[in-house]
């Protein structure tokens, strides 16, 4: 039996604003001091009233524009009503039937080798306020629950995709691309551990049977908190639904929509108790907030202020620096600052390929090992470029440059690392290329004398024999350029 997988993602993103969406409280992540970032408005105290934060609205607009969404000229706020301790007003201010944006798309790469891409539809993006956080302290048999309202009222953008995703890997790819775009736009830090990016997945199968497509019941998997878990949970759910189909033959409509959670430890999705009476949120327009009209001028201004998107940047870098699709993906996907670093280094040293190799290998390795971000990396792009520039200038070898690079990193000295430090290291370690061919020729002559067999082999037509000679010369003449050595040896052998 064959089937098609149908997946849609609902993504919640906390927008990076100074203050909350309807009050002046700080929206900073602060789990260690509960309830300090609160006021009558976000505590839902009697008599307090919300006032819309323009910055949050503009960040949301910016994101929707980057997702190619249509922006509504008129939008309003609605109350979504349900009872939960982390929701102090008994309703969440959200957007129901007039979201500020709809009908967009995000392009994702389907195949890294062919570079084939596909547009994933966005049904809508709307703004709402985040809830607080319930904390259950069950240590020592305690049954008390506590509520932290620091997060209550943080601006949240909900982005709902079309059910266009066809595999768990594709869902992950979509989420990664979305995250990258959001961080490029600087609208969210998208920290999944801290909950600033949260994902729910709607999954079902279309079973192909007797020339028909039979949909299985749609399941919503809630609170997927890492890319890995998104992929894993969906994979497990696909399997479960297929087994369930084979066992019960249940199809869409036979059972109410189910909500499941993901148990990463056991690698299974688990049915959740239905939220009591959650089916009717009794949405209605919030009478405390005026509807919002969005002027075309604002949209145009925000559109013109948009930065280059990751997909466009990949294309541009590939053309400008003649890099492979794989290389530009590695660079761009690391985030905006990493790509900025690359461009600065490539421009300063004039060799994009070289800069790319160093960034994607040496620097990425060091960042991972040292748990640093590119912004925290002690060697700035212009210093790296200075180092790299010395290789084609034949001041040092590629190998010596790596030695200098590591030395710069291990320096740990005070103050920023400057290019003059490179000179110091080269001098101290004697890494300067031996440009004095007289000294080098002496070494070569000695090596040739000591290796009659290799010499005979070479003269007998075995070109490879020269390798052994180069190796010996390099060991004795530190800092020599292998290319120069090779040329000098061949010259010596041919003339000898």
């Amino acid at each position, binding site marked *: 039996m064959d089937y098609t997988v149908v997946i849609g993602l609902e993504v919640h993103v906390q927008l990076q604003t100074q203050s909350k969406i309807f009050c002046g409280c700080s929206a900073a992540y602060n789990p260690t001091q509960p309830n300090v970032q609160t006021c*009558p408005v976000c*505590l*839902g*105290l*009697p*008599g*307090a*009233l*919300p*006032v*819309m934060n323009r910055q949050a609205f503009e960040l949301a607009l910016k994101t929707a524009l980057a997702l190619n969404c249509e922006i509504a000229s008129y939008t309003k706020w609605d*109350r979504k*009503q349900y*009872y939960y*301790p982390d929701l*102090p*007003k*008994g*309703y969440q201010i959200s957007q129901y039937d007039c979201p500020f944006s709809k009908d967009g798309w995000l392009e994702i790469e389907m195949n890294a080798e062919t570079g084939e891409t596909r547009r994933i539809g966005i049904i809508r993006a709307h703004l709402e306020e985040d809830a607080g956080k319930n904390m259950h302290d069950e240590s020592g048999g305690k049954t008390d629950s506590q*509520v932290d309202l620091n997060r209550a009222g943080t601006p949240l953008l909900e982005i709902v995709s079309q059910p266009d995703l066809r595999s768990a890997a594709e869902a992950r790819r979509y989420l990664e691309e979305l995250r990258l775009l959001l961080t490029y736009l600087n609208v969210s830090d998208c920290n999944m551990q801290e909950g600033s990016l949260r994902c729910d997945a709607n999954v079902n199968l279309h079973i192909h049977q007797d020339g028909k497509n039979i949909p299985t019941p749609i399941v919503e998997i809630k609170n997927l908190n890492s890319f890995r878990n998104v992929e894993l949970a969906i994979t497990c759910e696909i399997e479960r639904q297929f087994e369930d189909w084979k066992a019960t033959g249940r199809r869409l409509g036979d059972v109410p929509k189910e909500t499941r959670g993901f148990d990463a430890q056991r690698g299974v999705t688990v049915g959740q108790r239905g939220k*009591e009476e959650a*089916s*009717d949120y*009794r*949405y*209605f327009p919030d*009478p*405390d*907030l*005026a509807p919002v009209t969005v002027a075309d001028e604002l949209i145009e201004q925000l559109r013109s202020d948009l930065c280059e998107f990751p997909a466009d940047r990949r294309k541009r870098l590939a053309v400008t620096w003649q890099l492979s699709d794989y290389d530009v993906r590695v660079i761009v996907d690391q985030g905006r600052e990493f790509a900025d670093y690359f461009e600065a280094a490539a421009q300063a040293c004039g060799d994009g390929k070289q800069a790319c190799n160093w960034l994607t290998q040496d620097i990425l390795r060091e960042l991972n090992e040292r748990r640093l971000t590119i912004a925290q990396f002690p060697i700035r792009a212009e210093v790296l470029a200075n180092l790299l520039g010395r290789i084609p200038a034949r001041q040092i070898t590629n190998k010596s440059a790596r030695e200098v690079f590591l030395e710069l990193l291990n320096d740990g000295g005070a103050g920023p690392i400057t290019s003059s430090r490179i000179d110091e290291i080269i001098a101290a370690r004697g890494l300067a290329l031996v440009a004095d061919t007289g000294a080098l020729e002496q070494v070569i002559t000695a090596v040739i004398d000591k290796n009659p067999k290799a010499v005979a082999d070479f003269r007998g037509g075995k070109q490879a024999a020269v390798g052994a000679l180069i190796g010996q010369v390099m060991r004795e003449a530190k800092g020599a350029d292998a290319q120069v050595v090779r040329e000098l040896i061949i010259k010596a052998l041919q003339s000898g």
Partner: protein
Amino acid sequence: MSPIGATTSELLAHMERGEFSSVALCEAAFDRIAACDDRVGAFLHVDREAALQQAAQVDDKRRRGAPLGRLAGLPVAVKDVICTRGQPTTCASKMLEGFTPPYDAHVVSKLREADAVIIGKTNLDEFAMGSSTENSAYKTTRNPWNLACTPGGSSGGSAAAVAAGMVPLSLGSDTGGSIRQPAGFCGLVGMKPTYGRISRYGLIAYASSLDQIGPFAHDVAGAALLLEVLAGHDPRDSTSLPMPVPSYTAALEEPLKGLKIGVAVEHFVAGLDREVEAAVRQALDVYRCLGAEIREISLPHSKYAVAVYYTIAPSEASSNLARYDGVHYGHRAAQFENMIDMYCASRGEGFGKEVKRRIMLGAYALSAGYYDAYYLKGLKVRRLIRNDFDAAFAQCDLIASPVAPTPAFKIGELVNDPLAMYLSDIYTLSANLAGLPGVSIPAGFSSGGLPIGLQLLGPPLAEDRLLRAARMHERATDWHTRRPEVV
């Protein structure tokens, strides 16, 4: 001269001349409260110490010649649905028993800036839901003109406090007539300004799109002065209007020339008390004598006002009151099995009957499958009601009508007949639905000695016009000078 029952202008003049201190005034207020509030039941909470301390500070300022606010030294009572920092604010509900807000409502800050002295918090129908102040969880307020009668509601405590001479000024809130109807029942000037004219920040919401704070006073000048202090834009209330506030007191004595007063045919129909109708017609004669033209107008959709109001107001209320769930503040049941049970028990115990009735009405009207037929249709008819007024105000400057179909009714008379109680607001509801300003002014007495009010409604932001017209009538009559003998 006794300060009891004196008007704001008289009291301010006395203080100015040094004949009374604010402390003396406030002490007189507390004496009056002590003497008769056990019978009237206007106050839920008084803070004698804080009030006298504040009064002393104002007296001190006055002695030093420091700049004084517009209400310097005047005792003011505040409806207990308005948040006062550090003072209990209960909405006359068990749900908020012992609740003390950590902040002042916008209007309370305005009172403090104007050097008014807040005497205490007045009784109301629980969460401002009612027309008689009988729905309070704590006490029943009685009409100072006849203790067997209600003072009206829901701002009955604020009205009774002024009528009984306990304070010269008070604040009420008006969602469907809750200032104008008690003002009418108690022989006072009571005003509901244009929606958005006074910030709702700190007014505990009943129905957000209808609620508006307003003043009670013995006379038009007092109401105008208090309105002037309270009105204005507040960035903390998104529905607050940004327009500048004119001086309502400055032009008060100037009569309006060529005034055209509209009278709606729909307002004089069966159910209107004979004596009330006579008083209103007499008031219209007064205006005619003052040179005004009386024009017949029509408000064809006014017959739907009660139905629309009891769809929209409960819908908003059902949502606004969801926050009282026993989790973060307010009443929490002592016994419960689990979380859902805690919600049910806390709300079941904390809310009174009328509040529950309206929450259920509203939750029903907003439910999936009913929303379009009730709430959405309500919004559409609300628009038609507003359109009626827009058309009417193309032909007249103001609309005059009764405030309520009858004078004050007896305590207990309507309390078990919610529909009859709802109909007592038939003349006042439309102004809230249309967002218009309205004022109730004393216009006579029934044969039983109960006050009868006249309502004047104006187009948006015509508060100045309303007050000047009210003052014209006031100058030509003496109804506003009478005071009840509270025995």
